[in-house]
């Protein structure tokens, strides 16, 4: 019966062969190219910090694009990447918005999360109109210097550490005593590689307040500061990547509540209404689809007489709000056509500066402006996922309509990685978008 023993051996061999061996594909050899990723730092604002859903909280920090980049850089010699994380006990950080439910008409109810906060108090800074919210301090070296709210215009302003609670949190001194500029702070320790995505807030604040609550940073000042920033970052030979400023008028914050939708809503109740009136620099006028309404516009105001509100300097007005030129929608709720053009003009100038300065220093450039414009509805599929710039459903933007979801930040990280690999001949692997979530639904 020797024959059968042989047979068994053959069978066992075949089974072993077929179960043990995995099919292989040769991955590209890891290479850092001409760059050195051993100490990577990230410069930027809320996008860099991982801000999402109207707040900075632990999950957002963990899914920040610099953290995703740093994780991927490990394959090609990247070092540890330390973020100023909130603790587990204070994981909700500043607090944020979550999607609580949908109303019968399909509109979302956004609910603030107010437990497990890292808020340590508020302070009034002389000469500064609103109190500054302070957060639990983070001590120790960090690699992610993303500070929500910071403008490029503010990086050399010494008292800034007293006016921004997110920056104050990273500084050793208490609010009121700080005089370290952001630029000095981020360049205090040596580093080999940087990403920089500053400049968004130099246009964003203007756009999200309808051109009424903030001013666009002067173009020449932007150019001078950007040049100074990059010169300092590259002074010790570090290489890096920079990103351009996205079109601030293309975000869901300014494209979800439309004039057309407002008018249709009003006409359901009052078919005679012909137009929505808005306040502009040249006086009230009927709004068109080219005028952008902010996401947080309280729609309940529409069509009602305005009650007097002395604390906010609002006088009573008997005419229906937004439906009569004598009580037009306030400018702070609308980025009108002229303001849109103004913001775009400034962003174009900023981006010209960014590209020119980066080219002069041989830096990688992620053109976020062009890239994010490819997501205007219907958008595009990446890795089997449909993305567009729609609010909530578009998978890119978080619940504040300005900042990104973890999936959105992963896309940004991958685009930075592609730009870096292209510039420096490295092979940093891209992240899998499938590993990151989008807006959480109830």
């Amino acid at each position: 019966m020797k024959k059968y023993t042989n047979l068994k051996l053959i069978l066992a061999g075949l089974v072993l062969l077929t179960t043990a061996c995995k099919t292989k594909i040769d991955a590209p050899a890891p290479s850092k190219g001409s760059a050195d990723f051993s100490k990577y730092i990230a410069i930027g604002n809320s996008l860099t910090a991982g801000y999402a859903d109207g707040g900075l909280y632990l999950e957002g920090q963990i899914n920040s694009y610099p953290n995703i980049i740093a994780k991927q850089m490990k394959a090609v010699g990247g070092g540890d990447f330390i973020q100023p994380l909130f603790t587990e006990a204070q994981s909700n950080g500043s607090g944020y918005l979550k999607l609580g439910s949908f109303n019968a008409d399909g509109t979302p109810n956004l609910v603030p999360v107010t437990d497990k906060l890292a808020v340590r108090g508020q302070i009034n800074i002389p000469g500064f109109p609103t109190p500054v919210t302070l957060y639990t301090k983070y001590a120790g070296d960090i690699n992610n210097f993303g500070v929500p709210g910071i403008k490029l215009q503010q990086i050399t302003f010494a008292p800034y550490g007293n006016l921004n609670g997110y920056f104050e949190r990273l500084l050793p001194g208490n609010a009121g005593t700080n005089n370290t500029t952001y630029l000095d702070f981020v360049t205090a320790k040596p580093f080999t590689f940087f990403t920089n995505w500053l400049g968004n807030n130099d246009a964003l604040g203007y756009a999200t307040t309808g051109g009424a609550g903030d001013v666009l940073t002067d173009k020449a000042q932007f150019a001078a500061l950007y040049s100074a920033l990059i010169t300092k970052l590259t002074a010790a030979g570090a290489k890096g990547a920079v990103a351009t400023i996205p079109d601030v008028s293309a975000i869901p914050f300014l494209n979800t509540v439309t004039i057309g939708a407002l008018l249709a809503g009003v006409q359901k109740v009052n078919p005679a209404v012909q137009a929505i009136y808005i306040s502009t620099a040249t006086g009230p006028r009927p709004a068109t689809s080219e005028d952008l309404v902010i996401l947080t516009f309280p729609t309940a105001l529409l069509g009602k007489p305005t009650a007097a509100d002395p604390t906010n300097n609002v006088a009573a007005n008997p005419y229906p709000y937004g439906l009569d030129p004598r009580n037009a929608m306030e400018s702070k709720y609308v980025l009108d056509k002229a303001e849109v053009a103004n913001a775009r003009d400034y962003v174009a100038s900023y981006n010209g500066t960014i590209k020119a300065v980066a080219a002069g220093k041989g830096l990688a450039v992620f053109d976020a402006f062009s890239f994010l414009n490819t997501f205007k509805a219907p958008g595009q599929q990446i890795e089997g996922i449909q993305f567009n710039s729609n609010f909530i459903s578009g998978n890119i933007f978080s619940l504040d309509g300005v900042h990104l979801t973890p999936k959105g930040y992963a896309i940004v990280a991958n685009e930075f990685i592609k730009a870096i690999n292209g510039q420096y001949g490295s092979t940093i692997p891209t992240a899998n978008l499938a590993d990151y979530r989008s807006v959480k639904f109830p």
Partner: protein
Amino acid sequence: MIKKLLLAACIVMPATIFAQGFQVNLQGQKQIGMAGAGAGTAMDGASIFFNPGAVVMLKKNQVNLGVSPLFFKSAFLKSGSNNVENNVDEIAPPFEAYAVFGPKSGKIKFGIGAYTPFGGLVNWGDKWSGKYSLISLNLKAIYIQPTISVKITDNIGFGAGFVYNHGSVNLQRAVPITKSDGSDSKATLDGSGEGYGWNAGIYFKTLSGVTIGIVHKSKVVTKLNGGDATFDVPTALQSGFPTKFDSQLPLPATTSIGFGFYPSSKTTIAFDANWVHWNVYKELAFDYDNNARIPDTKSPRNYSDGASLKLGINQQQTDKLALRAGVGYAFTPVKDGYVTPEAPDANRIILSAGLGYDFSSKFCLDLSFLYEGIESRKQTNLESNLSGTFKTNVYIPGIGLSYKF
């Protein structure tokens, strides 16, 4: 009233495809050992599948049973990534069962066969980079084929069979809608249905001794009606998702010509050329019973035809032992841009080996081993933009028992 959300438009469900990868060429253990060539030879009851015209040329009535556990081992390297992802080991069990019987005169034979000409089992898991295209697919088509085969002359046999197909599909994919616990939504489409077709062939013994078979197996359009569509989605969105779907599986026709050469009384060489009419596969549609959140899908497929060439040898080593080997090559019908994780298809090379052992004049055991190496193919899918390189190896050991009477 105003901030209307248009969720539906952006949650698109791309449809699945069925390709060469789903044609299973495992219909007889002797023929598998010869790379799947068998249209031009009359070796055993598997001729019911390979060429109904050859069935009548079988010398004895017989029953043939076999199974071929199939190990489909695929790998994917996403473009830009350094992480090779493999599918989960799962074993698909294609099987075949044939019975051939007829009067002693040998002028006519009846047969019935049950076999699995199409199927696919691939499971990539729910963590991998392409999970929104596919988590897993389990596709089965079981053909049952009653057959009549007659001798038109001593040297010409003609046979035909009616094909009944019981098809089933279970397709799972992740849906990029995040649930409240942070996990993805998931869609499962599960259904079964029936289809009908035929299989006819003619078999010649030429004066030179060469045998020739010409066979056509018709397409079998299998309709899946009222399949279960299970959407594991956030509660707030559940009511807008479908629970049922209709679809159809277009299983293509195959035209084959096969030759048998007999250089000695102990040696059979078989050569088959197959043309698979995949061009019928223009699109795949899923109709859902509720389109509030997702539209019906109509995905263009635009297949070209597929083809394969197979060459096998059977050597009667001793009275009891036969040794077999084969080689083949198959041309994929999947055009660039349409490759998906369900069928990471490309041209493939086929190598086989087998042996047969006669325990007695009645009992015979056959063992086979087939390897299919599917060429590595770098692709960006036109629908999903999932971009990367697929490489697949398929290992198929097989065992069969025959009883002749």
